[in-house]
């Protein structure tokens, strides 16, 4: 009864729509992503940008396929008559199509996972010259940074409300909070971890570009959450030492702890 109502399908024009949309998707992925995202100043941020590009390229044909069906359907398969359309030719199932679809999505997922694990491993494997520890403390609503290295070099504590780290040296952050949960994020360095009261979380990063970067709080921490912003200065080693020496001693330190 419905055999005369099967809608036409031209593979050629469908493939043409699909190819055009895929090409647009891939072009946006490759050209658009680096332009839209923050500029990278570390390996981690570089990985993040690269991953977004790769995932976008991988997703482009899939999304384009769905959009192509929609466009094709809206253009060709509309019922133009009055009232209820007659039934179309039934299509209950197509085992090949379903298996192929699930197979392809499983392959894509496997790829995403392998890529993700590899990228994660390379992000976590931070080893650079002259590792320096910085203790980061969040409190409502400011950041403070302590430099244990000052103990060794200058025999006094240095505490600052801006972050100063030397270029191409490994910086290890120990992060905590004195009140509520904050989120320590240096956007251009591509690293982020919460500052939790009663716990210390860690991050390691090697900044590879000189510059002044923002540090922003990314966990809602109350009234002035949006003002909990400070600066990270990535400077040369020489500039860093000059800066460190210029800082006032924040607390007198018992000599006993300084002498070994």
């Amino acid at each position, binding site marked *: 009864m419905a055999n005369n109502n099967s809608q036409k399908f031209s593979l050629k024009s469908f493939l043409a729509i699909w190819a055009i949309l895929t090409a647009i998707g891939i072009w946006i992925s490759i050209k658009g992503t680096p332009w839209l995202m923050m500029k990278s100043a570390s390996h981690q941020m570089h990985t993040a940008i690269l991953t977004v590009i790769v*995932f976008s390229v991988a997703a482009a044909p899939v999304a384009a396929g769905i959009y192509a069906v929609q466009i094709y359907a809206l253009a060709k398969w509309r019922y133009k008559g009055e009232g209820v359309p007659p039934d179309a030719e039934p299509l209950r*199932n197509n085992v090949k199509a379903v298996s192929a679809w699930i197979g392809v999505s499983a392959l894509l997922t496997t790829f995403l996972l392998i890529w993700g694990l590899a990228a994660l491993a390379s992000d976590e494997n931070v080893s650079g010259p002259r590792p320096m520890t910085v203790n980061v403390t969040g409190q409502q609503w400011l950041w403070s940074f302590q430099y244990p290295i000052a103990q060794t070099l200058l025999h006094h504590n240095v505490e600052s409300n801006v972050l100063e780290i030397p270029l191409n040296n490994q910086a290890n952050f120990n992060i905590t909070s004195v009140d509520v949960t904050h989120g320590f994020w240096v956007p251009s360095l591509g690293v982020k971890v919460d500052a939790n009261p009663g716990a210390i979380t860690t991050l390691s990063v090697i900044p590879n570009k000189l510059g002044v970067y923002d540090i922003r709080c*990314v966990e809602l921490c109350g009234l002035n959450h949006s003002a909990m912003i400070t600066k990270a200065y990535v400077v040369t080693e020489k500039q860093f030492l000059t800066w460190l020496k210029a800082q006032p001693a924040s607390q007198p330190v018992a000599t006993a702890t300084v002498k070994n």
Partner: protein
Amino acid sequence: MTATIDLQKTHAAESSGGGFLRRLNFGTGIIFGVIGALLGYFLPHHFFDNQGSAYADQCTVISAVGWVVGFWFGIGALAGPFKWFLGWDQTHADEMYLAGKNQGKKRYWKYCTDHKVVGVQYLVLAMVLLGAGGILAMLIRTDLISPGTHFVNQQVYNSFLSLHGMLMIISLIIAVAGPWGNFVMPIQCGARDMAFPRLNALSLWTVVAAAVPLLTTLFIGGIQDGWTTYAPISIQTGIGMNTFAIAIITFVISTTVAGVNTVCTIMTMRTTGMSLDRLPIFTWASLIGGALGLYAMPFFATAMTMTILDRSAGTSFFSADSGGTGWLWENMFWLMGHPEVYVILIPAVGALLEIATVFSRKPLFSYKTAIGGMAGIAGLSILVWAHHMFTTGWAPQLGGPFMLTTELISIPTGIIFLVAVGTIWRGNLWMKTPLIWLMGFIANFIIGGVTGIYLSDIPVDNTMHGTMFVVAHFHYVFVGSVLFGAIGAVYFWFPKISGRFLDEKLGRISFWLAFIGVQVTFLAMFVSGLRGMPRRYASYQPIFEHTNVISTIGAYIIMAGMLVSLANIILSWRSGEPSGPNPWQSKTLEWLVPTPVPLENFEVLPVIESDPYTYGEKEGAHA
């Protein structure tokens, strides 16, 4: 309750049925609720030291509980248990009274057990809550039109933000499962009502009971901790947190009751021949969504109970000073929070797949794969919660496994796309508004889904977490996908509840405004996030101004679209074009009963011989 009622004989009894329930309605619910709240506020004087630091917390908690219990009493929710306790049986006349027989419009203000009344009540309630959340969204976006704070200060901004989130979550949980899971699903099963009609009324009025303390939060100082209410800031924030917490616990009671009811109805109340492989796909979606809600939502009530105890009883579940940790809250919250996304999404998907078959005049493509897809999503969703915690510092060693489970979800989600697209494939597309909303859903859900894949990848999440990118991602899912599905469902089933069509032209205007608005608002919001704007910022740095202005303009376009649909619903309910019982020539059972649907739905229960998707295969319905 049987179908063969001798109307003549029972008429006299009906006029006396109901007992003191006759005197109870929404108004008495509010009166007793307020009395309960006042008692709850002043009684603690006798029990607690009013010099104690937690005294204000204790009073507000008990007051909010007093409201809920008082409201239940005043609306008549406690009448049944009370009668059973005293050993009084409900008479048939009582049952008929409870089902709202011969009460006209009055029954919509009462504790009514008729699933169709409950469905309509849910529809209105969902729209009211959506409207309240929408107003807050507009206030937030208006405040973000340029850097710096404007007409609201940070404290008010944070309250708006938190309440916007929670109101929208609640209204979306009930937006499809509420109206259509109650009105349509029992008829689709071939049942005369839900398995537990009184629990059905209880679930509806418990959402009302929850909404009042939730909105009260705004007027007693608000909360500062977002809808996620992370600890320990949830312990530090003002007394608004107490009413917020009681509202959540109350709402969880509602979803649990509704979940039990949905699952039991589908498992036990199906008519002859309605085997599980003939069940309409929306009913399957209700079953899966309901079961998932039963697993997920109780975590929220438990976690909120802990918050209340920390605040008002001096315990230390979340306080680091005395052995607790905020990570406990984060785990409890996301154990609820991620499955909850799918409690919201799956019923909307079910409704949209019904729309796909009816408006393509084709059977659902690969019915069993569709069920497998929804079940797969539900199953995996309980194993992914810690992907919300990649950057919290809790268990970095579990990053890999949670990345795996999260990315696996893209496989069953892909199946949903395949089924939708396969159903449309070479169909005779009937370009009515429900189909248009479905097309919008597909387009938006692709974007919501793909951006979710970026966030599942830890190196990318280390950049994106906590930014506007995440906000844009889940708004593509909730607004662009779920809300489109919910509105599509309204355009689809509205003729069944009202006997009238929604206006096509207004529907198209509403769709295009909403569709364009979503792209403008949330594409710009993706860019804000990619450029480094954290979420929940009351004011932002000037570098984010352009994209925020665009997002604000887009939000106003969405609002215009929503108002057009709201106007459409109000106008069409009064004077829309009459539709008849089955305007879409659909084959599921809800369309084969008369409109308006009579009490107990079927004169004779139908016998089912096939699934309802026999388009192009045989004439007539599956009965």
